């Protein structure tokens, strides 16, 4: 076992050991709540370190977090993607919970030493979770995603003296069947109901006497991508493990942008839950 592995194992074990008696968000009857793509938040003073997202519960109804994969992207491609999301429960009444999540992703693309471009994506999500039966939940989701790129240089062959922008609207639903206290079967679907044309503008100087400009729109070949996923969720006290597999168009987690080819769709998240 390498030194790095030992250090990480020790750190995780220490963090787990430091966890207090109080647990992450639970229902009134003591069932842990699934907060992955649902209206539920992680819980007050709770840190959730996941592969897809780090979240911290400022209180029982407000989370703040980041998506580490986008930060880590810097190690393999010349792009830095600072991001932040905030999720707040706006209604928690009986079996119904409503939350709003606002996210922001800013991609800094260094195309050459002289040129750079930026991409901003701002997903706005509304989550609604309904406890239909003691062991059955229906989680609904509506997303509006606005993305805009701008800057100078060559970005995906669109020379950017201008900007690129698009917007989408998506709906999703997840059925959760709790078979045991910490184990659920899940069925998830997502459908993009609206896809705006991608708008781009650009201009350049061909020579000192000639300027050329482009004003264009890119229409998605697939205007209504979808995905259907079956999965499982293990909600242990300090570890949440989500696994799933399905078919359709893969929606990139967080920014919710669909990959334009129909394919196998993996789903999953592993998160350590620490009560501070």
């Amino acid at each position, binding site marked *: 076992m390498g030194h790095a592995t030992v250090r990480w194992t020790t750190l995780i074990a220490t963090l787990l050991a430091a966890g207090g008696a109080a647990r992450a968000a639970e229902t009134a009857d003591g069932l842990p709540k699934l907060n992955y793509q649902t209206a539920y938040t992680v819980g007050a003073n709770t840190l959730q370190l996941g592969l897809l997202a780090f979240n911290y519960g400022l209180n029982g109804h407000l989370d703040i977090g980041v998506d580490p994969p986008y930060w880590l992207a810097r190690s393999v491609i010349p792009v830095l993607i600072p991001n932040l999301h905030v999720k707040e429960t706006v209604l928690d009444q009986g079996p119904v919970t409503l939350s709003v999540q*606002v996210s*922001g992703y*800013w991609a800094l693309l260094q195309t050459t030493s002289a040129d750079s471009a930026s991409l*901003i994506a*701002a997903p*706005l999500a509304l989550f609604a979770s309904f406890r239909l039966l003691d062991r059955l939940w229906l989680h609904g989701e509506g997303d*509006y995603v*606005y993305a*805009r790129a*701008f800057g100078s240089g*060559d970005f*995906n*062959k*669109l*020379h950017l003296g201008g900007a690129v*922008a*698009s*917007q989408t*609207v998506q709906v999703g639903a997840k059925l959760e069947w709790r078979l045991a206290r910490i184990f659920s079967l899940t069925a998830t679907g997502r459908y993009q109901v*609206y896809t*705006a*044309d*991608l*708008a*781009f503008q*650009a201009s*350049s100087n*061909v*020579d*000192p*006497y*000639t*300027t*050329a*400009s*482009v*004003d*264009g*729109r*890119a*229409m*998605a*070949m*697939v205007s209504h991508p979808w995905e259907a996923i079956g999965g499982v969720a293990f909600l242990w006290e300090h570890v949440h493990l989500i696994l799933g597999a399905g078919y359709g168009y893969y929606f990139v987690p967080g920014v919710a942008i669909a990959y*334009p*080819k129909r394919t196998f769709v993996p789903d999953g998240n592993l998160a350590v839950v620490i009560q501070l």
Partner: protein
Amino acid sequence: MKRILCVVGGVSFVLGGAGCIENLSIPTPPMQSETQAIAASYDMPAGSLDVSNVQGTLDTINATIPNLALDWLPSYAEGLLSDLDSRIKDSGLPDNPDASRETHGFVLSAVVNVNRVCMGWDDPPGPPDAVQNGTIVLTAVVQSGRLVPESWGTATACKLNLTVLNGAITGNATLDGTVILYLLGPLPTGSSDARFLLTFNGTLTVGNQTLNSSIDFRVFDGVLAFRLPVTGGDIVVEVGTGSSVTLRGSNGTFLCDLKARSCQ
């Protein structure tokens, strides 16, 4: 729904400004059917050569050629198309009217504008001065992944020094009117692969002489051709090397010599 999204986008997208994406306004090329008819007449000329009066026809051709500015206008048009090609390729847009293209799961539509400040009459040319030397503005359209073959534009008091354009000729020219460039193949990168039809309506002045106000010619793989009105329609005159020309009419193809005033 789009109006609602504009509002939502504007509110939610604090960092990036307004969230509304306007529809692309794609202009309609002028005189589409007329231009297509002209292009077709180059392929199948309706007029027939009067074989009993070949010399008269060749005399008319000799008188017509100087009025078409064929010694510099075709290469100038090729330059405009090359500028379009450069811009279109840089944007990943299709440069061939005969093939549609999909890019990364998207079908592209775009309006491309090229604005060229004319170089003026000075030799060497001074810095760009649109007010003094005029402009040519050219528009091309990509619609549903396909380049529309017709590009068009306006020359506004465009002053050109012909020696700067082509060292073999002299004089100053002024273009003022509407230019249509109809592609008969992909956008050219140079003279050898240029395939297009040019029509010009306006005022074309070289020196003190105002040439034809309405001209058209075709460039196809280095062969320059123009139409000559005859009884029953037009015949096509293809300019060859030296004084040779090829005349194509509904009654056949004739290889002729302008100096000898004879055809085979």
